């Protein structure tokens, strides 16, 4: 198997927790993994991305080549479009629809959403709303992981187990809340896929 994922968002939105969860699941399944993160200056509200590569074979580069990503997983709608050159023709763009507006010239939402809708394979869900309903608003990143999970070649239960390990130190309530968020994201995507069939 091979999943090359570009994680996208704004510094502080929790894309590293998504990466850590998939990473934990991958290591448990004895898969190879490389995950390039962004630390430092950009974390102060700048655009951030992480290249996450999981494979049953050894991985050469920490960075995904352009046109090779299987998934763009974005926790912010405009940011999902920043990495389109990396998405393969058959890849999926999975994004949150709640914008993170910390700049004065954020484009109009209709234009952003229309551009996302142009992608042949796209899933756009309001992860902030779903997170607030089933967990806490802060879990919207994990909702997005759930939403992308049907396209990641790792068993869903392994992702749940990953969350248990990542958030275990913070107590059962936090773990269960995040697992609810993960499942709700998955359901949201499954419903969209079913409605399109």
């Amino acid at each position: 198997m091979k999943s090359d994922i570009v994680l996208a968002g704004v510094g502080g939105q929790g894309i590293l927790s998504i990466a850590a969860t998939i990473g934990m699941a991958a290591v448990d399944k004895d898969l190879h993994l490389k995950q390039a993160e962004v630390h430092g200056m950009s974390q102060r509200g700048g655009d951030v991305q992480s290249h996450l590569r999981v494979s049953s074979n050894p991985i050469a580069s920490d960075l995904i080549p352009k046109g090779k990503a299987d998934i763009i997983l974005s926790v912010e709608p405009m940011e999902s479009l920043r990495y389109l050159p990396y998405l393969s023709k058959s890849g999926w763009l999975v994004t949150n629809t709640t914008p993170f507006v910390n700049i004065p010239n954020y484009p109009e939402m209709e234009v952003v959403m229309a551009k996302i809708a142009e992608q042949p394979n796209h899933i756009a869900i309001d992860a902030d709303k779903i997170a607030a309903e089933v967990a806490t608003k802060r879990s919207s990143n994990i909702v997005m992981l759930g939403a992308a999970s049907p396209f990641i070649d790792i068993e869903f239960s392994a992702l749940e187990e990953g969350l248990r390990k990542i958030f275990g130190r913070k107590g059962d309530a936090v773990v269960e809340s995040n697992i609810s968020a993960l499942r709700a994201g998955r359901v949201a995507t499954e419903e969209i896929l079913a409605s399109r069939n």
Partner: protein
Amino acid sequence: MQKLLLLGDEAIAQGAIDAGLSGVYAYPGTPSTEITEYIQDSKIAKERNIHSKWSSNEKTAMESALGMAYAGKRAMTCMKHVGLNVAADAFINAAITGVNGGFVVVAADDPSMHSSQNEQDSRVYGKFAMIPILEPVNQQEAYDMTYAAFEMSEKFNVPVMIRITTRLAHSRAGVVRKPLLDEKTVSLPKDPTQFVLLPSIARRNYKKLIETRPDLEKISMESPYNTYTDASDRSLGIIACGIAHNYLMENFQDKALNHPVLKLSQYPMPRKDIERMVNECDKILVLEDGYPVIEELLKGYQEAGTPVIGRLDGTLPRDGELNPNIVAAALGLPIEEGDVVPDLLVGRPPAMCKGCGHIDAYKALNIALESYGPGRVFADIGCYTLGALPPYNAVNSCVDMGASITMAKGAADAGLVPAVAVIGDSTFTHSGMTGLLDAVNEGTPITVIVSDNYTTGMTGGQDSQALGHLEQIIEGIGVDPEHIRVFKPTAANLDEMVNIIKEEFDYQGVSVIIPRRQCIQTLRNKSLVLKVKELGL
């Protein structure tokens, strides 16, 4: 053995711990910070009482580590590339003293300047100091090389450099550990004059260092990290240094690479491998993530012999980080790029956090400067450098750690009124104090704003060496206590802040203004909040 999922930085830290490290000395700096942080959080390191507290700057860190190596224990110092400039005096001379316990210097370079003011290549420094350089291609090599580096240092009586770049420092992968070694016990150097670099002794030591050269080249030849893979198409040979090798191999996951490849991860260069490629191939492509160090060396000045291509002739971009696509383009391979980035996309530059104290200080400073005009503020390295961007446009320089105060001094000497410096508390104790002394000794009319947030903010909230005694330090340097002005930067205090700043502009001597409020990113750091309370700040 269970695989650990580690950043390149963390792999270096774990490798050092497992090799029997007794102390790490460092000042925070992206992308090197996580090495020391990992050791600070490590259970084994705590049990062993391995030193891991932050140093005031890279020079004090380098020297402390050298002192530990003098005393026979294994020591490591870690820094970002520009930190090595600060520590360069100690670094170059540590190659002349040699070591007793193993001494490892980690330099984390930042090609593409993700979080830095330049993209200098630390391999140049390693060569300058004439010491071995190890350049891992992945996290496992980062671990293995660090684990082995201490013994190499002891065996050849030299510091050993580990050179990484941002991409490896901040990329995570599985790492398998080796057995945990015991720490070394305290022992003195066999020769009591070894570390005394009086000219007569330094000349002797330097000759010894030169004599080590053939041995270091020999171990580079024998190194498992330098590999020559021959292939049939010798119209081109490829030298791939460090993680550039990954980017090369990424392009050949599903097809054969028919050119000979020298993977280069240990320096000095393995001379015989290089000679073989020069002799057997028609042309050589050099891939290196950083400066064209090896390329320049092979190319020489006369362009004689086997043609060498890479960053210098435009086959690769002259600057910036490499990636699989850049390497593909150099090899003439097709790139199946996805859709273009739509025009609607706008940039999202980093910014100071909502509610940050630096912002309130800048608002007051901008108002106070209105009657003088722009172009009078020298800033420094930290979050407050972002004050150069809109909407603040508040500062006019950012050069190196501590340069705010000294540049303001020079500008004041030239007649600029007012000459203002903006520096953080941690940067002040890193390199601002000595410059302040220069200004005090001459009574130079400068206004220094030490924006105190109790932490090293930009790198993630590490300890500040200034905490609890900032005014004492400033008074001790000789600033008149009447011109050390402390206030809390908030929107409500704006008028008061503006008045204080204006008053100090009028003072014909050294003023230090301290806007003081805790970094909002550290408000969840319970031990810091408690400490701030205890100190009555």
